[in-house]
């Protein structure tokens, strides 16, 4: 009997497909997410929109908060650690969280490296803006990838940008000769072996969700149409006027993304969405995606 194998980690991520993972900051919100059909919750102290507004250093959530959320729901609980913060990751693993998000939404802890995720029994999800980032994170042992988007903006444009770039690069990779692949690996800063695996499969070897700016059922459906296996919704639910109704609508839209009539029905009368921010209004150094 073996625990924490790569198959057990990536296999768990496969179980999230077609689903919605929701950011929650309290046990009550976690219960709302579970009742609305979330496949997992992300336990946080502050949602990305508040992290963005309040500034300062954003760290791993208080273990007490995470434990309260784990006790409140039966679905898997994820939590975020800072990029490269091995100690936060070890703490989250010891708490028994089901998945760690090594996340650019928190303030990075290591200016040089990400975590060597092969050393952990708990699986990790990491963000990417393109194929090079995705391949590097997979080489470090990530069991799941999410495109980054720009968290806490309620603006889907960066999520679309990253998914479009990733798709385009995978498409180009598919037709490359061995020599071209090696040269492309150098251009992307990506390991050759991971690119070979992606070329053979014609897709990433792990589940890929979309994140960062999804605020409406239509946004969720759009990301699925572009090939995302599912979606993370951060501030989009609990910063909106009617979280219960919106959460359920986004869950339905993620499954039935190719049914426009159903999308129209679930998009109706959801109350105010979270307020959005134009990406151009955000100073370059405050963009989370470049972390």
């Amino acid at each position, binding site marked *: 009997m073996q625990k*924490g194998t790569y198959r*057990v980690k990536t296999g*768990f991520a*496969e179980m999230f497909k077609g689903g919605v993972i929701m950011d929650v900051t309290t046990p009550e919100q976690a219960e709302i997410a579970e009742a609305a059909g979330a*496949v997992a919750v992300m336990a946080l102290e502050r949602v990305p929109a508040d992290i963005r507004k309040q500034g300062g250093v954003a760290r791993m959530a208080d273990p007490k908060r995470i434990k309260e959320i784990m006790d409140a729901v039966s*679905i898997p609980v994820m939590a975020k650690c800072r990029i490269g913060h091995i100690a936060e990751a070890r703490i989250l693993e010891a708490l028994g969280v*089901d998945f760690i998000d090594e996340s650019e939404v928190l303030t990075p802890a290591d200016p040089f490296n990400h975590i060597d995720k092969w050393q952990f029994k708990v699986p990790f999800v990491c963000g990417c803006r393109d194929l090079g980032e995705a391949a590097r994170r997979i080489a470090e042992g990530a069991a799941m990838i999410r495109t980054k988007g720009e968290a806490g903006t309620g603006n889907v444009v960066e999520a679309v940008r990253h998914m479009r770039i990733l798709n385009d690069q995978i498409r180009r990779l598919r037709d490359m000769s061995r020599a071209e692949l090696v040269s492309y690996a150098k251009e992307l800063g990506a390991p050759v072996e991971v690119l070979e695996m992606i070329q053979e499969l014609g897709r990433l070897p792990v589940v890929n969700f979309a994140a960062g700016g999804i605020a409406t059922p239509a946004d969720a459906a759009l990301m699925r149409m572009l090939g995302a296996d599912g979606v993370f919704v951060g501030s989009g639910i609990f910063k909106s006027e009617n979280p219960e109704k919106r959460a359920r609508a986004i869950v*339905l839209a993620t499954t039935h993304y190719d049914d426009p009539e159903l999308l129209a029905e679930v998009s109706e009368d959801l109350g105010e969405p979270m307020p959005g921010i134009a990406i151009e209004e955000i100073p370059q150094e405050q963009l989370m995606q470049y972390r």
Partner: protein
Amino acid sequence: MKIGVIAVQGDVREHLRALERLEVKAVPVRKPADLEGVSGLVFPGGESTAIWRLLKWSGLVEPIEELHRSGVPFFGTCAGMILLAREIVNWPERFFGFIDIAVERNASGRQVDSFETELEVKGVGRVPAVFIRAPYIRRVGPGVEVLAEHQGHPVMAREGRVLVASFHPELTEDLRVYDLFLTMCS
């Protein structure tokens, strides 16, 4: 023969691929019309509470009950087993209840305790088995045959035309457990 795979959420792709490898026509089921003409129905792994809500909100619960009454065999893995069980010992909701067993959700523990191993399956032999936050069977009714156990916990069972497993044969290359289900369908 055409087999349906419930496709509202979960590891649908792996089940479709397993059926494809066994050269069986497989169709994803997301709306009632997709159930037309299926000789068997697979309930995949995933999050049981999410799948149940999506089945309800997608108008699939009654058509699936109808299909069960008409005698079509069902196969559930992990979350699929929870959906097919009569009773959930640690959860207030009851789902389809097509097989007379009581299951405990997440009985193998949280993800850090998920594991892979080998199991002896009655009538099949030794198979690789992947358990992910897996449910265990805590009670079996008189008409239920236990087909495999792990450390004394029943993890695979059959009653009539309903087959359930706590683990995920679809995540491995060994599809003999699947063959057992296809035999029930033909």
